[in-house]
């Protein structure tokens, strides 16, 4: 039987969840025995070449590129997991959500203390379009599992991955569920 295939992505996140993933320490050697890594910043595979079993999503959606990536993950992964507070509820990027997008952009590009002279709000077709709000992943596509935390602990990520690989229910003990 071939190994389960895993893909990961960081959307509007800080890569902290990926760092926490690496924090499983020597268990990563066991993980490599158990799974095959596909599209992920860990191995720098950029596009889906085959269907994957598990997709891990860090970060919410703050721009059109995040939405495209998330939708491609939904299309290509059997089980899609929101990893961390940003994926689950927007996290720190969502602190802008109560502020109108026009005000945010003007504050960042026109009125910030470090802007000088005639500045503009970037608007190039190469750039992804920023969304009106930062959206949690489950408000864009269907998400099958949620791993809370900022970041989720390495133990939680390990428990979730091994449970998904073995096809057993997640054993979420009290100490594994944290929102910070």
């Amino acid at each position, binding site marked *: 039987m071939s190994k389960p295939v895993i893909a990961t992505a960081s959307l509007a996140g800080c890569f902290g969840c990926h760092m926490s993933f690496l924090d499983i320490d020597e268990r990563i050697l066991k993980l490599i025995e158990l799974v095959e890594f596909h599209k992920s910043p860990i191995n720098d595979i950029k596009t889906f070449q085959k269907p994957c079993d598990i997709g891990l999503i860090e970060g919410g959606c703050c721009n059109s590129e995040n939405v495209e990536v998330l939708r491609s993950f939904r299309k290509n992964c059997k089980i899609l997991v*929101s990893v961390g*507070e940003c994926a*689950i*509820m*927007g*996290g*720190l990027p*969502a*602190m802008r*959500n*109560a*502020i109108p997008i026009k005000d945010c952009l003007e504050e960042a590009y026109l009125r910030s203390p470090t802007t000088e002279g005639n500045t503009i709000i970037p608007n190039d077709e190469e750039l992804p379009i920023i969304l009106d*709000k930062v959206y*949690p992943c*489950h*408000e864009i596509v269907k*998400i099958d*599992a*949620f*791993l*809370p935390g*900022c970041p989720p602990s390495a133990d939680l990520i390990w428990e979730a991955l091994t449970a998904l690989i073995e096809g057993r229910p997640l054993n*979420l003990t*009290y*100490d594994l*569920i*944290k*929102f*910070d």
Partner: protein
Amino acid sequence: MTEIKFTIDGKACTARPGQTIVEAAKANGVYIPVLCRYEGLKPAGSCRICTVRVGGRPVAACTQPVAEGMVVENATPELEDMRRAVVEMLFVEGNHLCPSCEKSGNCELQALAYRFRMLAPRFPFQWPLRATDGSLPKIIMEHNRCIQCLRCVRSIRTEDGKGIFAAQERAGRMRIGVDPELAARLDDETARKAMDICPVGAILRKEVGFAVPIGRRKFDRAPIGSEIESK
């Protein structure tokens, strides 16, 4: 004194006359989740986290006195899911960003979410626009996190009995107002009491914070209510 006999989820319990279901449950080692209730304050019955079924009807256990022969349903799947839904509604209704909140680990709303294993709210986030008031000398009013439990309104008073906090407006526009003159004279002890009595991070003391490291905060190790259940 007469002793009242009643049951919670089939468990035989006793109560003193006048005790509410929450108080009597606690005395019998049964935890009924509460949020707007605070020990020593007159119960408000506003958050409905403590909803139980008595004779099949939902009642607020923090205000309802126990009566002889009462049959209380508490930890049923239906009630647990309803309570979880209330917590989820509170999470989406305000702006609760736990990773950046000073109250994280000591927050009762968060602790209830942990207890109910809330991984993601079932409701869409509302992202309301609410201002933060940093103008007061001793405290910050972080209205984004206020759940309008009125614990501060009901408890924090000046020495001569004047209320410092008050509810302003109604329904979705309701917010906790602060009397700026009285709040300007707030001493450190009252400011500490106000922060402690706030179940969330809506009232914060200025110039102090993050004193207790992660792992040693109130709800880091054991669920809210476990101190009652372990008796």
